[in-house]
């Protein structure tokens, strides 16, 4: 275990974690006014209506995929009777499709941003850095899928991420980072993990914070909101139905 490995996989994750959580809390307190999607749909709608859902829905699947891949140990799926081959076929197939949607979506969004005059004028330096890291993370992620798929077909000797990356990831949360596990993974995975950490470190300081505010609460609140002048939320003055009814 070299010093570099220790720094990258043993120390850096915690630095990122502090930045991610601390940064988000700090910004939430300091910058409510800047906490928005900064939607550009007023300026351009046609491309956004294709690109944004493609990107976001693709990303949601990717996020779920990451959660399953990182959280569930290989032993559990085996115990549940899912063969490794079947697991990989599904994971790689779904991952590739979702990843490609995400990439196509983000490509369209970036192209739109660059070529639509009003949207380009409304793009800050902060946005540009965020897009760079975001696109790199997606591309590196797809590269890992590609490498793993190739390994499936050629039988090449690629370390399975479920015995390397995932083990390391879970070890972070119990405060004893398994540095050798991560060090044993493939180059593509290492790059993806590094860029991913960069994205998480940046996250709270960009427009991406809008993801924290996903308004699921809309389903449960009365339609018309009343508030009193001195800031107290008014009593629910009108009987209302819940959202699913």
């Amino acid at each position, binding site marked *: 275990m070299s010093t570099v490995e220790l720094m990258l996989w043993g120390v850096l994750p915690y630095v990122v974690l502090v930045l991610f959580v601390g940064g988000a809390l700090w910004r939430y307190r300091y910058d409510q006014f*800047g906490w928005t999607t900064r*939607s*550009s749909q007023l300026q351009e709608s046609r491309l956004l209506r294709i690109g944004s859902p493609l990107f976001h829905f693709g990303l949601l699947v990717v996020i779920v995929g990451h959660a399953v891949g990182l959280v569930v140990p290989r032993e559990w799926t085996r115990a549940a009777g899912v063969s490794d081959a079947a697991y990989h076929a599904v994971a790689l197939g779904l991952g590739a499709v979702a990843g490609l949607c995400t990439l196509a979506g983000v490509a369209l969004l970036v192209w739109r941003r660059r070529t639509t*005059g009003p949207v*380009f004028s409304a793009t*800050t330096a902060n946005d540009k850095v965020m897009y760079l890291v975001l696109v790199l993370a997606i591309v590196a992620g797809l590269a890992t899928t590609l490498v793993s798929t190739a390994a499936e077909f050629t039988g090449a000797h690629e370390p399975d991420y479920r015995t390397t990356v995932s083990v390391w990831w879970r070890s972070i949360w119990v405060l004893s980072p398994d540095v050798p596990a991560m060090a044993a993974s493939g180059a593509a995975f290492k790059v993806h993990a590094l860029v991913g950490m960069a994205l998480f470190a940046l996250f709270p300081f960009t427009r991406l914070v809008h993801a924290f505010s996903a308004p699921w609460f809309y389903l449960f609140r009365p339609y018309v909101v009343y*508030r009193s002048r001195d800031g107290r939320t008014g009593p629910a003055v009108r009987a209302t139905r819940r959202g699913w009814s």
Partner: protein
Amino acid sequence: MAIGRVMAQVAMVMNLDKCIGCHTCSVTCKQAWTNRSGVEYAWFNNVETRPGQGYPRRYEDQERWKGGWVRTRSGRLKLRAGGRLKKLATLFANPVMPSVHDYYEPWTYDYGHLITAPLGDDIPVARPRSLLTGEPMQVSWSANWDDDLAGGPELASQDPVVQRVGDKVRFEFEQTFMFYLPRICEHCLNPSCVASCPSGAMYKRVEDGIVLVDQDKCRGWRMCVTGCPYKKVYFNHKTGKAEKCTLCYPRIEVGMPTICSETCVGRLRYLGVVLYDVERVGPAAAVEDEKDLYGSQLGVFLDPDDPEVQEAARRDGIPEAWLESARRSPVYALIARHRIALPLHPEYRTLPMVWYIPPLSPVVDAVGAAGHDGEDVHNLFGAIDALRIPVEYLAELFTAGDPGPVEHSLRTLAAVRSYMRRINLGQERDESIAREAGTTGARVEELYRLLALAKYDDRYVIPTAYGVDDADRGVIEEIGCSLDFESGPGMGGMGPAHGRAPAPPFGEASGRPDPASVETFHALRTRQSSDAPADRADLKGRVNLLNWDGNGRPEGLFPPRGEER
């Protein structure tokens, strides 16, 4: 009927006959609220010529824009653009968001060119430049592009209201009629903008019914823009937050009228308190027949002279001053006692609270043009019956197509005209004129005082906010000097969002928002000292006199003195 929970609303009535289409209201409103970048295209108050397309273009076409509520077959109300699940599913890209071009692309002029152009035979011109991109542009539409062009076949045939009245409307020159329709947010009793906001950042104030956007809670999901059928929520493309008419609440709270009312040249706006029963709002908005919505909304309002209403209002914590104000409210009088003010597009089912007295002038003009006496009640009544097109058009605007209430309103206005003419000519009062319009002489004279004399104190009857002392009436709360906030100009800084101090970390629109007064201060200052939309460095320090308000001596107004050079 039992009285449910009583709430108060500060509401407005506009008397359309008096609007001269001068746009003073729009300009003063803009100066006060939207002279910032990000909302250049937004007019919280706009004045449209009718027939015409309005602003944003064809906003009344709800088949397309999906604003407001619809009644489901089971009798419930549903947002026309879709319920909660659909809203969340389409959050990533709003399927029916108007683009800035449906309003118009805001622009400025390249004034700098006038002084920098090289010597030549041609007179230099200031060409338009887009305020969105800074590029030269062709101006092709604006907030009142069809001003005064009502009846022009190309434009008026695109008016959604005209299209509903049907092909009966021929825009032949002799038959045209025209009037102005000033519009602000309706501060609806059943606001679909509020219902559309996924974050819950929009709200209706309990005390005075003003509908506001909490700038700190808005997350830029931009669903409210679609939700409002009047298209009176605007998306600030700079800050990424929704903004809308605030009914000038800092003024209303201290008993002053809104800026648009205060500066209205025609003195046609009325402000006052209306009491209503919140529990009746939902059922009233859900009546089956659209034509009943006018009546059902009247049924939501409570008569402030009724002792039972007063008792219920006290029970629900309405202060005595507000009750008194409600009794004297010109708005309640015009809406409910005289029934001459009507709601704009009740069929959107939002129960709007800015009502309109329909214009008699198209009728009077037609009678006059035919060579008859335009103040004779029978001529006017005859014309109201004969001029189907203006009446039907007005009915499509104000009563979902039911001509009855519009006719009643016009006949009452006609009666006021004829009845008062006799008095002015020294003749006897003729009670029969009032009777023919279904009213009495005393009521006609009351209307005359309210509509024709229209004294300031009769037009605006506004109580101060709960808990604000009446001694503060007319004093807008300033927290010390409004420029003296942390790192503000009064404290030696330039304010966070203005370039000279370090920029805020997450782009221009982040950090604490500047108070509006500070933004205005800087906007004027920057505009005075720059000619180009994109602040050209070579022109720094020059003064653009077009933006100089005549106060002070802006830097660079005069060339530097000898020793400073």
